[in-house]
């Protein structure tokens, strides 16, 4: 009996090895994503991006607007204005990552949280994933009834992330990661959908995030590439600057 169990384990292990060997390499999947969403040249035409849209805490009747400004190589500023809460601002100038809101006050990010924020701020990060991550295809899993490649992304610094790419379209459909900040380590699952072309790039217009029992839907309504962004847009607010001087 024990031999049968052992044999079964060997078969299972062999099966798993064969399956892993059959899987496409992560770099193939990640590079193909660039290709199916417009190609490297299309991405490289863009040097800045301004997006606006809306957000909703699903089922809770809480709504707001989202504005995002990004500029190469690594500048980012996002403002979410929530009815009844006010503005939640986050930004990075490539060196410093911060957040500020009346609800929670000012914060200069550090450690893994800072590393993740700086990675997220990198413009056209899809093109440069090799600079930041080691990637490995770890299996095939269904997402919303569709087979997806599961790709484990491990950064040099910061928290790892698992991405799911639709086997058929090679589009990114889901991301799972743990967000680490002073409030704790909070698992976040993001569903990515509604791919539509903006200029030469096919991009998702809807992200639904589940975290700490809540669901937040963000819908991108307008995207402008290479729009002129005021230089000081990416400067940290005075309160953050004062904290940095301290």
């Amino acid at each position, binding site marked *: 009996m024990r031999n049968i169990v052992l044999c079964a384990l060997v078969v299972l292990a062999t099966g798993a090895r064969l399956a892993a060997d059959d899987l496409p390499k992560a770099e193939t999947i990640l590079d193909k994503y660039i290709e199916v969403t417009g190609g490297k040249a299309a991405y490289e035409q863009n040097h800045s991006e301004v997006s606006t849209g809306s*957000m909703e*805490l699903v*089922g*809770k*009747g*809480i*709504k707001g607007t989202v504005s995002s400004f990004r500029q190469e190589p690594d500048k980012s500023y996002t403002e*979410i204005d*929530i*009815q*009844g*809460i*006010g*503005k*939640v601002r986050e930004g990075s100038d490539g060196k410093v990552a911060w957040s500020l*809101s*009346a*609800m*929670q*006050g*000012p*914060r200069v990010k550090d450690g893994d949280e800072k590393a993740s924020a700086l990675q997220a701020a990198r413009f056209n990060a899809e093109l440069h994933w090799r600079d930041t991550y080691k990637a490995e295809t770890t299996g095939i899993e269904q997402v919303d009834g569709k087979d997806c490649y599961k790709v484990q992304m491990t950064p040099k610094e910061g928290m790892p992330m698992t991405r799911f790419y639709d086997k058929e379209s090679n589009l990114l459909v889901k991301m799972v990661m743990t967000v680490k*900040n*002073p*409030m*704790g*380590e*909070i*698992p976040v699952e993001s569903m990515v959908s509604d791919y539509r072309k903006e200029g030469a790039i096919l991009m998702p217009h809807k992200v639904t995030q589940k*975290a*700490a*029992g*809540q669901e*937040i839907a963000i819908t991108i309504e307008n995207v402008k590439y290479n729009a002129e962004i005021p230089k000081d847009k990416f400067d940290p607010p005075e*309160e953050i600057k*004062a*904290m940095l001087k*301290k």
Partner: protein
Amino acid sequence: MLLRLGVFGATVVFIAAAADRYALTPGERQLNVNSFEYVWKTVRDKHWDPKLGGLNWQAVHDELLPKVEKAGTMDKAREVMTSMLERLKQTHFNIVAADVYKEVESPGSRDGNPGIDVRVIDSKAVVSSVDPDSPAARRGIKPGWQILRVDSKDVLPGIRKIQGGFAKSTLLDIMLARSITSRLYGKIGKAVTIDLLDEKDQSVGLELDRAKPRGVMAQLGYLPPMYFWVEGRKIKPDVGYVRFDMFFEPETLIKTIEEMVKSCGDCSGFVIDLRGNPGGIGGLAMGVAGWFIDKPDQVLGTMYMRDTNVKFAVNPRIDAFRGPLAILVDGCSGSTSEIFAGGMKDLKRARIFGARTAGAALPSVFEKLPNNDGFQYAIANYVSQGGKPLEGNGVIPDEEVPLTRQALLAGRDPALDTAVTWIEKQKK
């Protein structure tokens, strides 16, 4: 983005007293059944304790489903759903009548009041404060006056009933106060008759208008609309003072605190008055705390959810007030007030004065049900940084200062006076 919403449910229960007694159509009955199922499943799937403390939740469902199916009025259907939630024996689980949300379209349609706040002291309903420029202020009502009857109905039997039902509960004070104030509330323009005893114990009968409540109407998602106000001033040349009725309108609240703190750089102390404050947006406890804490990595407490834990971490402001901080609380301070006061006490950053708080501090959210009622449910347990859950325990002041009718009649505020005396001692 995490929102932690923690309005104390009793507010909702009492303002949701309007009757929906008309007979329901079959379609409306079905919506009530759907709502019942939604409430039941939500608790089953989202309560932080998957075992619900050993409660047989399926049996509760099977027992009450036939009752909601038979319920011929909205009131009856709500009663069934409320009784289901009451089996949990926890605060922050409530059904909010759809009618409550009409206040947004028609301010004052249900929330008018004569401008009186009440505490029950030694079984007497006593006016604890009178809003400036309110109908009560214009008719000369003063703190310390005793309310005997509202609309010709004695208040004492209701007080006795609540004293019996909540004898061992930290909710006693808030339930007693709300049993009176809920009767004072009503439609603007519809007067309320109050029989009182004045400072000389002389009977006074007054018909008072109900006016728009103090403050501005604030709303956040499906939370019932609330009126928010905040005041900041110096109560002595060198003691800052901020009071607000709820943790709402973050930008307005924080702006007021910021201005007070910045104008109080050389103050010998600061008082945050949370008496009667039933809570509000939970996360705002962190924002307020940041103006009084200058050390990094401070945490007020932790909310424990089914799948994750979230710390209420404080982000210190660069210009935070660093002097002695007194926080005033009473039995009507609930939820976010308790999270803030309890955390600041545990961090030894503030000294707490007044009376034990309501012990109603479960983080909760509001949703809309298929029948358009609101549904508040707790999503987490909350443990203050000292290691104790606040639910059912409350925050115990460092200095208990009882409120008396005599002090109110004399124009004194014992808790505030004691806090200021303590601040002055710190200076020496």
